[in-house]
């Protein structure tokens, strides 16, 4: 856990030194829109972003980006000329560093640790998306909620805690859980209360504490 945090701060320092300073973006700012030509890459230093894709009926939140992420890179690597999603700042504000494509690719060539970090983050996003594909047609809402909370915990770098079977802290809002799991407000609240009564978790302001990972997982 400490190593991951140190690694993220090392990269942050490197990027700020080479490409900074960071700029603050207000909540609601769109860094880029779906179908817009690829422009700069952004590195998220502080705050949170939501990545959205529009559909025929409604938009869908694909994921929430956390500090330490490069935003807008997936279209760069699959040779598309346009962004496949929209990136919007949420929360109070976000600090981001802008890099041009060439500088970003040079950074990758010279820093294998950054390549590895991007690889791991891509793997996690694919896992979440596949989980949502599977959940949407095969899982009960109870299982969907459990999967979503575990995923969010992993995104918060709780991997090491999970393996030692101890407490997991999931930093999230109810809206985030609802957007990712597809469970609407009322049944979500009902389920969270049920889980709380059964001592599976504890809901606090902007975070959920899961006491025992294995027990929580078996509640599916």
């Amino acid at each position, binding site marked *: 856990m400490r190593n991951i945090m140190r690694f993220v701060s090392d990269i942050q320092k490197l990027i700020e030194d080479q490409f900074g300073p960071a700029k603050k973006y207000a909540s609601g700012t769109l860094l880029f829109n779906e179908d817009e030509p690829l422009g700069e890459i952004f590195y998220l230093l502080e705050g949170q972003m939501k990545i959205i894709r529009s559909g025929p009926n409604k938009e869908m939140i*694909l994921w929430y980006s956390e500090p330490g992420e490069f935003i807008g890179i997936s279209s760069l*690597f699959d040779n598309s000329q346009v962004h496949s999603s929209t990136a919007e700042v949420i929360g109070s504000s976000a600090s981001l560093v802008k890099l041009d494509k060439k500088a970003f690719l040079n950074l990758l060539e010279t820093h294998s640790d950054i390549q590895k970090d991007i690889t791991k983050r891509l793997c996690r996003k*694919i896992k979440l998306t596949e989980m949502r594909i599977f959940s949407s047609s095969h*899982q009960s809402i109870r299982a969907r909620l459990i999967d979503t909370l575990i995923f969010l915990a992993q995104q918060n770098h709780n991997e090491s805690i999970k393996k030692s079977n101890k407490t997991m802290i999931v930093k999230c809002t109810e809206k985030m859980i609802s957007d990712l799991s597809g469970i609407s407000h009322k049944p979500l609240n009902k389920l969270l209360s049920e889980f709380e009564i059964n001592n599976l978790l504890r809901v606090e302001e902007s975070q959920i504490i899961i006491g025992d990972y294995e027990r929580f997982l078996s509640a599916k």
Partner: protein
Amino acid sequence: MNDIAIPNCTICDNQNKLFCGLTPDHREYFSQNKGKNVYMKGQVIYYEGNYPNGLFCIFRGKVKISKIGQEGKEQILNFAGNGETLGYRALLNDEPYNATATAMEDSHICQLSRNAFMNTLDTSSCLSRNMIELLSKDLKDSERRLMNLSQKPVKERVAEALTILMKQFGFKEDGKTLDTTLTRREIGEIAGITTETTIRTLSEFNKEKLIKLEDKKISLLDIKTLTHMARAYELN
């Protein structure tokens, strides 16, 4: 099928995107650190929940990647064919497989050792870059499927499943009949709908002369319309 000889990685004719651009030395290193197996039709290559020992690379064959739900219902997440690799995400993250891989026909598959793959990833920026490209494509594919499953109507989803099969398996010699004998249940598992709905929708397509059904065989008669339907709700 068992007679097929799997060549050395330096002369393999498969266009593997992951290994594209690797030096002959790296390819030779892979050859020296791989095992070769034949998996019979229906045989599981790896199970969801198991930890990976290496990277699978399909020399000849077809594989489906799927997950089993609480009531035993299967969801097909993806297919893989000649030259494609399997199990790299579990290997990269040192975590259990997220899904099960099953041979759909007798398949010749190489297994590169975990150490050989991870060592090369550490030393080859070309392999690292290819890996990011492959994962970026995987991510977009899965995002598109998620959008489709949650927002696309049933007929369009079945049309999409047929176009996926067309791209993945191709046609028999007549240029119309899909070169696969997937069951109606399995087609439903791709589209994320029940077997009954799949049968009903295919029957409607048959009546509309978009396809021709003959026993298990499906011939695509109007690929243009099917492709148009499959893409009707997609933005890019």
